[in-house]
C-alpha cells in the first residue's frame, strides 16, 4: 500500500484495513513495517522483523506501552530511513530552521509544528498523538492529517529540539525541513466563511422574496421593511463576498487581458444597481435573491477548485535536497557548520549515506559515490583520494574526508540549477475560458448597446430596465462554474487512481499534450527491479549460497542486487573477506575460496554485453563458473503503455545512461531515443520540441529531470513513496500507476470535451435569458429561477460527465 494512495482523504479506516488484508503475503512480513523479511531475519519477542531498526522501534513502543499502534492497523510502521538520508539533527539547533518550526516558546515550554510526510494511517495518528508516553518532556502532540503535520508541545530544557527530532526519527517519523511553506489555512478558512455567509444571505433573501412572488398582500409597511432588509443583506454580498471577483477583473483590465471575472463583475454591479434603483423608486423588490444566489454558486465553485493536495509538496528548490549542515573538521575537532558558510580549503566529513554538498576533492577514505540523485543511475562510482567529487553525489561506503573546492554558491549543481531557473520560460498556455471570456464580454456589451438603441427609438423609458436586464441575465455564472467542477472532479478521480495534480488547470494542459517525453532510470525502470540471469553451466545450490555469502557482505550495488535475488538461500559464513575496489570480492566460504567480480578478477575474458547489462563473474577454488547478467527491468505494463501512447502522440526517451535495453528500445520509435543526456540536454530537447510546435509532457523522477520537468508544458514526477524527494512539478504520480498514463491522458481529453459541451449548454441558457431580457419581459422571478436552474444543471452535467469519463478511460 503506497503511502501516496492513502493521501486520498476519503479512504476510511475500513477500506485501509481491507486493502492490507488482500495483499498477498507470500513471505514473512515484518511485524513493524510489513516489508518482506529475509530468511535470516530477526525474530524478537516472538515477532518477525525485517531489520534491526524495526525491532528497535517495536521495543521502544513496547516499553512505553504504546503497542496499540500495532492493533489499529496491521504493520503500520515506517521503515527507518538509512542514516544520512535525512538532514543532520544538529540543523534543528540553528535559529533559521528553529524559527520556521517553533510557533510559540515561553517559560521553557515550546510548541513546534513539524511536517511529517510519512504519516499514512490511523495508527500513525494514534502514535504521534501519544508521544507524551515515550518521553516525559513531551506534554502534548496533535496531528493534522490533511497537512501531514504534527504539533508538539514540550519542555525544551529537558528535550532540546534536535533531540526531539532524533526521537521522531527513531520511531520512523522524521520531520522534513525545507523552504518554509506558506500556510494555506488562512485563505482556505476565509473562503469557507465567504461560502457560509453567501449561503446564509442567499437562503434568507429567497425567503424574503417568497411572499412577494406569491403575491402576499400583508401590511405595506412590513413589505417595504423586508425589502430594506434585503438591501441591508446585499451590502456584504457586494463589499465582502464579491471583492475577489472585482479584484481579478480589475487586474485583467490593467494587464489588458480578458478573464471570466470581468463579465461576472459587470453582472454583479448591474444586479446591485438595478435592484437598489427598483427598491428606492418603489418599482419592485429587485433581484437581490439572484445576486446572493450568484455569489453563493460562484464561491462554492471557487472553494471546490481551491481544494488540492495540500499534504503533497509540488514546489521544491535545490536547497530542499541538499544537506544544510555538514561536519567541518579542524584539527581533531568536528563541528557542524552551515553548508553556505563553507569556504574552499575547509575539510569536511561526509558519513555513510550522506550527500556531498559542494564540489570537493577526496582527501582520505574510499569514495563510493552514487550519483543517482543527479543522474538517476544508482550504480556507484569508485573514487580514490585526489579525485574530484561533484556536489550531489551520495557516499555509499564508510565516512570520507573531503577538501572543499568551491563554495556552495559556485558549485556546479547550484549553478546548473540557477541557470535552469533563469532560462526557464515555459510558454504560457492560453486558457480556453479566457479566450471565451473576451468574446463573451464583447458580445454582451454589443447586445446591451443594440437593445438600448432599439428601445431608445421605441420607448426611452424601457432603455434602463432592458439594458440592466441584459447585463444581469448574461452574467456567466454557469459558464464560470463548469470548469472548476469538471476539472475539480477530474483531479479527484485521478487522485484516487494514483495521479495527483497540483491544480485544476493542469487537467486542461494535460488534455492538449501531443508529445510525451520519458526519463528512463527510476521512471520507466523501477529503481530496484532487476532481471538477473545466470550464464554458464547450471550452478548447484551450494555454490549459489557461496555467492550470497559474499554478496551480502558488500555494499556494492551489484552485490546488493545479487544478494536480493538470492535472498531465499541459507549461506555459510564467509571469512577472510577482502573487497578489491573496482574488481570484486574474494573470501573463504564453506571451506572454498570464492571470488565474485569483474572478468579479469575471476580469471576469464570479458563477455559480450547486451544493452547496458552488467556482468558479475564467479570463480570457485580458482575455477571459472560463469557469470550473472544484471539488467534493469521496465516497470510492468510500461512497454504496452508506450505503444499505446505512440498511436496518437509523439513519444521520446531521454536518458543519462549510455545504453537502453532492447525491451524498452523496442517500445519507442526509431530515432526517438537519446542517450547520454545531461540535465541541460534534456531541457534543451524539450525546448526544441516546443519550438516545433509540440505541447510536451515530461515524465521524470530525479533531480536530473528537474529542469526538463519545469520546461515541459506539463511535468509529472514519478515517486515510489510519498516521502521521497521529488523535484518541482505540476503533478506527482504513484509509480505503480504509471502504466495508466494513456488512460489519464484520455481522461483529461474527455474532461476537456465535457467542459466544451457544458460551455455550450450554459451559453444556451444565456441566449434564452438575453432574448427574454431584450424583449423587455425580464422579471425578478424569472431571474431567480433561471440562474439556479442553469448553475445546478451545468454542475450536474459536468459531475456526471467527469465520473463517466473516468469509468470509460481507467478501470
Amino acid at each position, binding site marked *: 500500500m503506497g503511502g501516496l494512495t492513502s493521501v486520498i*482523504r476519503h479512504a476510511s*479506516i475500513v477500506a485501509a484495513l481491507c486493502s492490507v*488484508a488482500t495483499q498477498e*503475503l507470500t513471505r*514473512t*512480513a515484518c511485524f513493524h513495517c510489513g516489508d518482506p523479511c529475509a530468511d535470516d531475519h530477526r525474530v524478537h519477542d*516472538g*515477532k*518477525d522483523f525485517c531489520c534491526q531498526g524495526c525491532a528497535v522501534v517495536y521495543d521502544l513502543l*513496547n516499553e512505553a*506501552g*504504546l*503497542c*496499540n499502534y*500495532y*492493533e*489499529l492497523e*496491521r504493520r503500520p510502521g515506517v521503515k527507518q530511513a538509512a542514516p544520512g538520508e535525512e538532514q543532520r539533527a544538529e540543523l534543528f539547533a540553528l535559529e533559521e530552521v528553529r524559527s520556521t518550526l517553533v510557533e510559540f516558546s515561553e517559560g521553557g515550554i515550546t510548541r513546534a509544528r513539524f511536517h511529517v510526510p510519512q504519516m499514512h494511517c*490511523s495508527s500513525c*495518528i*494514534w502514535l504521534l*498523538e501519544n508521544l507524551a*508516553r515515550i518521553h516525559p518532556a513531551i506534554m502534548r502532540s496533535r*496531528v*493534522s*492529517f*490533511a*497537512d501531514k503535520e504534527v504539533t508538539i508541545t514540550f519542555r525544551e530544557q529537558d528535550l532540546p529540539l534536535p533531540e526531539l527530532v532524533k526521537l521522531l526519527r527513531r520511531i520512523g517519523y522524521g520531520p522534513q525541513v525545507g523552504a518554509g511553506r506558506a500556510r494555506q*489555512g488562512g485563505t*482556505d*478558512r476565509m473562503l*469557507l*466563511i465567504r461560502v*457560509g*455567509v453567501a449561503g*446564509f444571505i442567499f*437562503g*434568507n433573501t429567497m*425567503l*424574503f422574496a*417568497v*411572499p412577494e412572488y406569491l403575491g*402576499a*398582500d*400583508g*401590511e405595506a409597511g*412590513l413589505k417595504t421593511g*423586508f425589502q430594506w*432588509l434585503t438591501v441591508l443583506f446585499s451590502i456584504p454580498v457586494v463589499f465582502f463576498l464579491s471583492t475577489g471577483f472585482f479584484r481579478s477583473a480589475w487586474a485583467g483590465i490593467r494587464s489588458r487581458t480578458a478573464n471570466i471575472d470581468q463579465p461576472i463583475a459587470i453582472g454583479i454591479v448591474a444586479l446591485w444597481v438595478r435592484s437598489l434603483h427598483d427598491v428606492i423608486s418603489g418599482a419592485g423588490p429587485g433581484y437581490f435573491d439572484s445576486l446572493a444566489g450568484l455569489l453563493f454558486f460562484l464561491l462554492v465553485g471557487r472553494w471546490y477548485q481551491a481544494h488540492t493536495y495540500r499534504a503533497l509538496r509540488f514546489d521544491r528548490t535545490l536547497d530542499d535536497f541538499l544537506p544544510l549542515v555538514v561536519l567541518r573538521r579542524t584539527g581533531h575537532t568536528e563541528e557542524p557548520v552551515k553548508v553556505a558558510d563553507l569556504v574552499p580549503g575547509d575539510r569536511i566529513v561526509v558519513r555513510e549515506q550522506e550527500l556531498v554538498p559542494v564540489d570537493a576533492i577526496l582527501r582520505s577514505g574510499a569514495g563510493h559515490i552514487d550519483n543517482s540523485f543527479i543522474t538517476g543511475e544508482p550504480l556507484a562510482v569508485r573514487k580514490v583520494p585526489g579525485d574530484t567529487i561533484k556536489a550531489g553525489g551520495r557516499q555509499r561506503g564508510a565516512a570520507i574526508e573531503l577538501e572543499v573546492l568551491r563554495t556552495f554558491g559556485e558549485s556546479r549543481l547550484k549553478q546548473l540549477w540557477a541557470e535552469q531557473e533563469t532560462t526557464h520560460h515555459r510558454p504560457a498556455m492560453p486558457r480556453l475560458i479566457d479566450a471565451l471570456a473576451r468574446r463573451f464580454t464583447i458580445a454582451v456589451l454589443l447586445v446591451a448597446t443594440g437593445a438600448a438603441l432599439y428601445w431608445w427609438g421605441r420607448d426611452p423609458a424601457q432603455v434602463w430596465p432592458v439594458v440592466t436586464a441584459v447585463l444581469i441575465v448574461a452574467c456567466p455564472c454557469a459558464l464560470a462554474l463548469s470548469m472548476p467542477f469538471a476539472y475539480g472532479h477530474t483531479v479527484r478521480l485521478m487522485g484516487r487512481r494514483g495521479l495527483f495534480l497540483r491544480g485544476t488547470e493542469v487537467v486542461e494542459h494535460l488534455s492538449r499534450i501531443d508529445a510525451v517525453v520519458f526519463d528512463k532510470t527510476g521512471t520507466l525502470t523501477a529503481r530496484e527491479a532487476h532481471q538477473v540471469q545466470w550464464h554458464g553451466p547450471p550452478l548447484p545450490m551450494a555454490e549459489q549460497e557461496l555467492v550470497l555469502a559474499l554478496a551480502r557482505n558488500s555494499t556494492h550495488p551489484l552485490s546488493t542486487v545479487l544478494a536480493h535475488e538470492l535472498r531465499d538461500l541459507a549461506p555459510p559464513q564467509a571469512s577472510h573477506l577482502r573487497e578489491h575496489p573496482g574488481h570484486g570480492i574474494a573470501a573463504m566460504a564453506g571451506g572454498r575460496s570464492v571470488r565474485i567480480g569483474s572478468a579479469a578478477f575471476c580469471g576469464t575474458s570479458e563477455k559480450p554485453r547486451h544493452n547496458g547489462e552488467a556482468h558479475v563473474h564467479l570463480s570457485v577454488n580458482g575455477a571459472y563458473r560463469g557469470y550473472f547478467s544484471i539488467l534493469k527491468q521496465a516497470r510492468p505494463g510500461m512497454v504496452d503503455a508506450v505503444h499505446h501512447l505512440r498511436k496518437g502522440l509523439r513519444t521520446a526517451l531521454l536518458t543519462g545512461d549510455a545504453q537502453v535495453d532492447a525491451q524498452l528500445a523496442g517500445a519507442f520509435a526509431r530515432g526517438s531515443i537519446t542517450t547520454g543526456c545531461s540535465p541541460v540536454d534534456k531541457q534543451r530537447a524539450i525546448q526544441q520540441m516546443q519550438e516545433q510546435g509540440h505541447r510536451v509532457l515530461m515524465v521524470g523522477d530525479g533531480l536530473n529531470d528537474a529542469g526538463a520537468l519545469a520546461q515541459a508544458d506539463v511535468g509529472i514526477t514519478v515517486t515510489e513513496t510519498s516521502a521521497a524527494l521529488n523535484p518541482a512539478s505540476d503533478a506527482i504520480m504513484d509509480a505503480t500507476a504509471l502504466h495508466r498514463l494513456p488512460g489519464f491522458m484520455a481522461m483529461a481529453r474527455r474532461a476537456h470535451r465535457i467542459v466544451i459541451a457544458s460551455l455550450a449548454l450554459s451559453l444556451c441558457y444565456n441566449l434564452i435569458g438575453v432574448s427574454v431580457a431584450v424583449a423587455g419581459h425580464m422579471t425578478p422571478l424569472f431571474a431567480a429561477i433561471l440562474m439556479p436552474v442553469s448553475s445546478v444543471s451545468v454542475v450536474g452535467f459536468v459531475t456526471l460527465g467527469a465520473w463517466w469519463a473516468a469509468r470509460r478511460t481507467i478501470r
Partner: protein
Amino acid sequence: MSVIFLLLTISTLLASMFLFAFIRAVRSGQYDDDRSPAVRILLDDTVRATPDDAGASSHPSSATEQP
C-alpha cells in the same frame, strides 16, 4: 398572511445564530483537517501491555499470514 412575516423574522434570527456559530467554528480551525478527528474518535485511550492480545483480538487472520 402576516404570520409569514413573523415566521420569516424568527427564521432569520435563528439562521443568524447558526451563521455566527459556523464562522466561529471555521475560525477556530475545525474545518482545517477533516480526516484526523474522524479517526481520533475511534482510538482507545487504554493502553495494552503487549501486542499479543492486540493481534489476536482485532486481527484473527494474522496467525495464518505468518508462516
